[in-house]
């Protein structure tokens, strides 16, 4: 039996989604002529500003293109569902946002994305655009601590892109933007847990098997297997398991500040997310860490997967300023 989806044609789903997005958000977004998978901010790219291009596979909405706008990313290159975009649409994004001060590519650390974005970067270099890359690696469940560079980029993208976008919008130098982007990545820690699978529009089949009373800790945002299967736990137990791992790495001191993101993997409703946030706040209060800001909702999803992820960004004055810097995107506003 096929999973239920409100679509017309699985192979056209991504392009039809993009049409619907441009229909809804033409005030914020436009797409490059002849390259409909290259989505550019109407306001944002400008001479002298470092350009910020993000991107990756579809199915994670509002990541990536929801975060394209003034004060955040200048463009997003969109791939098929759970598949990196090819080099061409990435290159088109780079050209569209290049303001002469260099273009920063930011995306999650996945083999496919790395190969495609690197090819695009090589092509851009031939057009004499200076391109640098900062990979996001916030998923603490995806590799041991001493191999941070191997980790996946997941919901923490939100904080990391936000910091880099703010740095660009403040017209900081390419070196400064890159430094802040790397710092934001190093200060951001995410862990997720999945309860039920999603299904690709083309296959309409659950992309993994899981027992009716099981959950999976550390599941990737493409349904990649995580680190452990276990019986479904209580919200507090799930939050504790995530926070134990995150806080052990972040090692905050009393009085430190963090930003919190409690993210739905897709179908988990706000009621459950806020119950998790309740516990997150309790735990942070217990160790004297103050919460500067909290976001709760669908920020980095896996289609209709059920589950939650918790992200903490360890703030210092600079990262806090970047977080508070205003942005105005199609699907997200702050400041």
């Amino acid at each position, binding site marked *: 039996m096929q999973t239920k989806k409100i679509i017309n044609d699985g192979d056209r789903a991504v392009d039809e989604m993009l049409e619907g997005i441009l229909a809804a958000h033409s005030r914020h977004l436009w797409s490059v002529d002849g390259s409909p998978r290259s989505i550019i901010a109407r306001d944002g790219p400008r001479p002298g500003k470092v350009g910020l291009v993000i991107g990756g596979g579809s199915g994670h909405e509002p990541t990536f293109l929801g975060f394209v706008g003034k004060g955040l990313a200048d463009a997003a290159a969109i791939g098929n569902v759970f598949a990196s975009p*090819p080099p061409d649409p990435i290159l088109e994004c780079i050209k569209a946002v290049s303001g002469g001060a260099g273009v920063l590519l930011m995306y999650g650390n996945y083999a*496919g994305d790395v190969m*495609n974005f690197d090819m695009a970067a090589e092509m851009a270099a031939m057009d004499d655009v200076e391109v640098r890359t900062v990979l996001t690696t916030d998923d603490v469940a995806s590799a041991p601590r001493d191999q941070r560079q191997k980790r996946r980029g997941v919901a923490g993208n939100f904080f990391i892109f936000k910091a880099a976008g703010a740095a660009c919008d403040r017209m900081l130098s390419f070196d400064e933007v890159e430094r802040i982007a790397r710092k934001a990545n190093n200060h951001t820690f995410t862990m997720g847990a999945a309860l039920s699978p999603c299904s690709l529009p083309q296959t309409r089949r659950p992309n*993994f098997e899981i027992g009716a009373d099981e959950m999976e800790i550390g599941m990737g945002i493409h349904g990649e297997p995580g680190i452990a299967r276990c019986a479904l736990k209580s919200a507090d137990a799930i939050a504790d398991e995530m926070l134990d791992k995150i806080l052990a790495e972040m090692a905050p001191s009393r009085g430190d500040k963090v930003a919190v993101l409690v993210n739905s993997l897709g179908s988990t409703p706000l009621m459950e997310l806020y119950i998790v946030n309740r516990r997150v706040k309790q735990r942070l209060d217990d160790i004297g860490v103050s919460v500067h800001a909290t976001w709760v909702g669908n920020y980095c999803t896996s289609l209709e997967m059920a589950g939650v992820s918790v992200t903490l960004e360890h703030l210092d004055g600079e990262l806090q300023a970047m977080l508070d810097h205003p942005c105005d995107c199609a699907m997200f506003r702050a400041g």
Partner: protein
Amino acid sequence: MTSFGTADLKKMFDAIAAAIEADKDRLCQLDGVIGDADHGIAMALGFNAARDAVAALDAATVEPATLLNTAAKSFLNAVGASSGPLYATAFMRGAAAVKGKATLAASDVIAMFQAMAQGIKDRGKAEPGEKTMVDAWQPAAEAATAAHGAGKDLAESLGIAFAAAERGAEATKDMIATKGRSSRLGERSLGYIDPGAASAVLVIGAIRSSLAGYHRPR
């Protein structure tokens, strides 16, 4: 026949696309176990696009290298993902290996085959044993080159290559992934065939059947 032209390579892409389409679901299922369940989709999208793109070329005026570059570009733009750059690079390198030739002799086909495997390896920076398609492509290419060097004809050489690819893919079961999406699984990737290696077997089998006239018993 002992030499191959653009028309033969079109047939080759027909054969590959048909082989992948037939096993699309199995490839998605393999990828579902240790990856993100879309490998069959990506490969089918890519080879259907490549087949259509090369079908549109004029066999009379277009030479093999151009056809291979066309296939590379259309595959890449239809897919992205991991398979996109890997196979696009394979075909671009294959093109470079037969640049300027109007028709390909058996030795050219072997050289093209070898270059494709090398392209995948270079693009992915993966070594054999890392549980990727390289574990099918590299032994296949080595076997083909060795066999042909030892005087075997193209059909025999590609037959040996295909057998090596099958063994190599099977062997990925006992490997722990250290490249690609599955590389975070560690131990948990043990016991499963790598989907990219499995699809490589299909691709190599289709190359063999179309160029060496061998048809797998059904």
